[in-house]
């Protein structure tokens, strides 16, 4: 029997039971659609994290004071004063570092005339712009000279500008106050929007670190160092060099804990990726289970169908259908249900993905492999779960089947 005849027979049989056929298909449709949607959401969030991280500077290295035990009491990392300006100056000479900036910050109220706004002021060097991939849109960055003189100048992020200059005046050249310290605005940063964790990256004020240290915080240590490796792939070895130099400078005995903590974006991205990977696997598992349930639905219906059509099977056998013909017929019926369910499921999945993106504004990304995978899985499901009922049909005794009531 040729395949065209088989298809004709199977389609005819399915056509006689449209509703049942559709309900069976529904299991597969839901299964495939959920696999595609879940994987699209998982991959979308992964992509957006990746984009966010590379926006933040993919080869960034952050050095912070590490927590340390002092007389048996573990100290908070914030209380540590283990990093000094001299550490920063020493690290400047280290090979493999493209840009480096100390970091001190302070939260406080910014005031411009009648308008005031709470924000955080970051004390850094001009290198900071390269490290964080920031750009000055209007005005200019402060200079090395401003750093030496601890000049009362600052650069504002867009959010700060919007709040302090609500009427759209040009902030460059204006004097604002941070607490009681007057600062001249010399530039405005280009907007970067929110990052993957929902933080507003434009809610920022940048000033020379000397200004923040001496005039605002009145401290003689620095709170952190930002650096960037010359190459993303050389981040690891640069971190090793920094560790070695800082341990030597801080006179840390071999075997003792570091009194500082170095993190790179790579670690951060790995950490966040592993979280989102886990979520993706979890979602895919749930979706996979629903596909399995859909498959069992096919098996169930095919069994019912074989019993119900025993007489038909007996007739087909008595007019010359071989076992293999009956087996193929029922197998093809199962595969048609699962494959067309799969195709509809893919369409529904794409639609659902699009809706998630439009309504919930979640980042999504449909990968070709997830479509192919779910399609392959549901075809295999059809064959696997259709096999036993089809085998049962083919094994019927025509004499008994034709007289079955």
């Amino acid at each position: 029997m040729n395949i065209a005849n088989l298809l004709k027979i199977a389609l005819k049989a399915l056509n006689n039971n449209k509703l049942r056929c559709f309900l069976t298909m529904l299991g597969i449709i839901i299964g495939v659609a959920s696999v595609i949607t879940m994987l699209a959401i998982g991959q979308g969030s992964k992509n957006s994290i990746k984009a966010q991280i590379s926006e933040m500077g993919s080869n960034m290295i952050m050095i912070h004071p590490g927590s340390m035990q002092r007389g048996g009491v573990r100290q908070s990392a914030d209380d540590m004063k283990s990093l000094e300006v001299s550490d920063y100056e020493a690290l400047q000479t280290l090979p493999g570092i493209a840009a480096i900036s100390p970091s001190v910050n302070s939260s406080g109220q910014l005031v411009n005339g009648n308008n005031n706004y709470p924000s955080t002021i970051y004390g850094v060097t001009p290198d900071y712009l390269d490290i964080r991939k920031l750009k000055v849109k209007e005005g200019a960055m402060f200079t090395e000279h401003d750093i030496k003189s601890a000049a009362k100048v600052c650069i504002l992020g867009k959010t700060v500008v919007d709040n302090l200059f609500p009427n759209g005046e040009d902030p460059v050249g204006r004097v604002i106050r941070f607490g009681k310290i007057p600062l001249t605005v010399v530039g405005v940063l280009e907007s970067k929007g929110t990052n993957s964790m929902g933080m507003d990256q434009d809610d920022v004020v940048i000033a020379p670190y000397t200004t923040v240290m001496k005039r605002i915080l009145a401290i003689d240590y620095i709170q952190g160092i930002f650096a960037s490796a010359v190459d993303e792939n050389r981040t690891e070895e640069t971190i090793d060099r920094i560790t070695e130099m800082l341990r030597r400078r801080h006179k840390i005995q071999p075997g003792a804990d570091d009194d500082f903590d170095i993190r790179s974006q790579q670690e951060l991205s790995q950490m966040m990726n592993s979280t989102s990977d886990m979520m993706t696997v979890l979602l895919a598992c749930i979706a996979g289970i629903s596909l399995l349930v859909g498959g069992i639905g096919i098996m169930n219906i095919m069994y019912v169908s074989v019993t119900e059509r025993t007489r038909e099977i007996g007739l087909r056998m008595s007019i010359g259908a071989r076992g293999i013909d009956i087996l193929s017929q029922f197998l093809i019926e199962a595969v048609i249900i699962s494959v067309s369910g799969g195709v509809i499921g893919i369409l529904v999945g794409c639609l659902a993905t699009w809706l998630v993106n439009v309504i919930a504004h979640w980042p999504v990304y449909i990968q070709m492999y997830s479509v192919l995978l779910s399609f392959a899985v549901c075809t295999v499901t059809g064959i696997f779960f259709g096999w036993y009922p089809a085998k049962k049909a083919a094994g019927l005794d025509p004499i008994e089947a034709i007289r079955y009531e």
Partner: protein
Amino acid sequence: MLKHAYSNGMKEIIRVEKLRREFIVGGEKVKALRGVSFTIREGEFVTIMGTSGSGKSTLLNILGCLDTPTSGEYWLDGVSVQSMSKNQRAVTRNRKIGFVFQNYNLLPKTTAIENVELPLLYNPSVGARERREMAIKALEAVGLGSRLNHKSNQMSGGQQQRVAIARALVNDPVIILADEATGNLDTRTSFSILTLFQELHAKGRTIIFVTHNPELAEYSSRNIVLRDGKVVSDTCNDFPASAREAYENLPKEND
């Protein structure tokens, strides 16, 4: 000695020798056939008669290649069925045998023409167009040329049985096996179906009609009676009664 009307040079279609068939039912051996032998030649219209339990259904299953005997020989159209595999028997059923059943066994929600095409779907040497032409020819032969696209549930019992006969004819079989083909029909329709069988016989078809109804014997050309798995009589009827006349003489239904 038996004298057969068609024994003069006509080809042997069926020859069975010492057929035995035993079943094990509930641990006991049941002998359904105890040595049945006969020969059927081309163009015969044979009724096989017997009460229930006489072994006629078992004999029909064996003649129809659905079952194999425990011992004995069966040649269909000169080929020994004994030596065939299951699949070969399926192909034989498809090419050489036409079945007509008591309860028609048409596919539900399926048109007459599609039902008749069914045996040809299992014959890969027949193309789609040829299949349709053959099905139309078979339906015309049973007088349903105007009802090609009626669905099986839109037809009367007699019409359904005609479709079933067309389905049995479509592959141009060497033998038509009818199993109580009039058993589900009222008297008038029974005679009209019987008339159809006689017409087919007149055109040279070889027909075996299995029934428990002794009245039907007078319409066939030969009658074999089975009892307890044995042939108890095998008689020729050189002048079969006309089913058409019987049909026309039936009282018209007034109520």
